[in-house]
């Protein structure tokens, strides 16, 4: 079964490109453009990995991060943000993110991070 990825990103073109790229490499991809939609789809599709933007039109992506971590410790969460800074990275990791990338991110790098996470967490994959 293909690992599923949920992209929560309001930058529509970027989200679609990531989706195209990952689907091309055999992933099952879902896209949400808002915090609310992101949370809803997370509950529906139970993804293995969530690619999460911090700045969302209806709130802060870190709220999704906290919400997911309260209910699910196994799902991989990679923060993607246009705001840089080590502080943000530290906070994101402290809040339970598995990785952190700054935009513009190379799609192959992103895939590498996803593959790495899936590789490390193979046993629980598919049980979600």
């Amino acid at each position, binding site marked *: 079964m293909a690992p599923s990825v949920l992209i929560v990103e309001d*930058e529509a073109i970027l989200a679609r490109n990531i989706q195209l*790229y990952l689907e091309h490499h055999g992933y099952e991809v879902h896209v949400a453009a808002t915090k609310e939609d992101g949370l809803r789809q997370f509950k529906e599709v139970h993804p293995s990995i969530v690619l999460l933007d911090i*700045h969302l039109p209806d709130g802060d992506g870190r709220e999704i991060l906290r919400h997911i971590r309260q209910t699910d410790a196994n799902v991989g969460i990679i923060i993607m943000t246009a705001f840089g800074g080590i502080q943000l990275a530290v906070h994101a990791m402290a809040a339970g993110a598995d990785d952190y990338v700054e935009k*513009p991110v190379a*799609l192959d790098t992103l895939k590498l991070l996803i593959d790495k996470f899936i590789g490390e967490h193979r046993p629980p994959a598919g049980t979600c």
Partner: protein
Amino acid sequence: MKSFNLLRWFSLASLVCIVLLSGTMAMLLSRFMTKTMIERDAAISSQFVESFANAKSVSTYFEGLQDMPPDPALISFFESFFEHFLLESDVIRANVYARDETIVWSSTRDLIGKRFGPNDGLDSALGGHVIVELGTVGIDDKTEHIEFEPELKGQRYIETYMPIWSGDRRTIIGVVEIYRLTKEMFQAIDTGVRFIWVGTTIGGILLYIALFAVVRQAGIVIRRQEQRLVELESMATIGEMASAVAHGIRNPLASIRSSAEVATIQNLDGAHRAAKEIITNVDRLSEWIRSFLYQAHGDSPATAAADVNAIAHSNLDGLATVIRRQNVELTRDMQESLPLVRVDSALLGHALNSLLTNALEAMPAGGKLHITTRMNTKRRVVEVHIADSGHGLAKHLTERVFRPFTTTKRGGLGLGLALSRRAIERSGGTIDLTSVSGEGLVVVIQIPTVD
């Protein structure tokens, strides 16, 4: 607003207060001291006269003699009686009054047997009080002061009325009045008054200097803190600007990069679409930088004519999905064929978009959004009212939304409202937020027409 000059106002106000306070204090102290010294002196004189009168049992000379013409025996008695006083060089006159206020004896012979008009001091003395009055020869003259020695003119004296009691101390049988120059006492009073004035003046000056120094120091501290605040504000603005720059540039860059990456994958469809997206995002970046530079330099936009209705309609159409999803009841009340307004279309578009987005965010579970545009012919401005029925804005936020680089929501540059306010205010217009907490927000924009 002109800044308040703390030091200048304080120095003026405190100077006036300290001068008034010191002056009043010195005056009151001087009066009190003078009064006390004179009364003390009068009391001593009075005691002396009284004890002397008792010793000599002068009462017999008063009783039954009032109506008689000056009696040599009486005169010689009082002469011997007052010898003691007159020997003192500072007594310039002594009068002895009978109960009917006739002078029965005086050191100035011409006054003996005379009776002058109403005299409050004498009346009070006949009532049993020791009365002291201050005067200056030649200035405070009363009828009974006549014939002072001409060389005494201008000298200060103390006039004391002392009652003489009968042997059994039941009635007052007469009054003794003496005029004394008491130079030593006046000198002492003058010295005391000088000390008081010098003391209060020095005290006032020291107080003024101390307060001035404290306030001056406080002023320096306040100025330093103001500078620090400005620095902090600048730092915060720079921080916000850095975030706005990062957000404004990196998002389009991320789209561009990912589009290019997708295009490079041979067997992936969408290369043509990806190329178009790259162009779109490059344009977006370039527009962002244009706005950013405009904010940074404050240059006037080249085009300054906007169709308010067209922009408002376009914005509302763009937000139609959100309006529908949030179940917001939208009403448009737009006056037709409005004149163009003197503001950059893109900036007005940003402003309206930010304001409408804010209004919709305030009503996540439905509400009413009312847009009105109309010409105010009296002021020659076009007015735009945006009223929502949301939760309103907290007071501190109404200012916050106008701060530059406050990143607004979807697709926001963080500059929209700040830019727009600047553009609108520069064109002579205004933008105001009125919020009643819990009852929504009303935004009123007024922009002058092009002509």
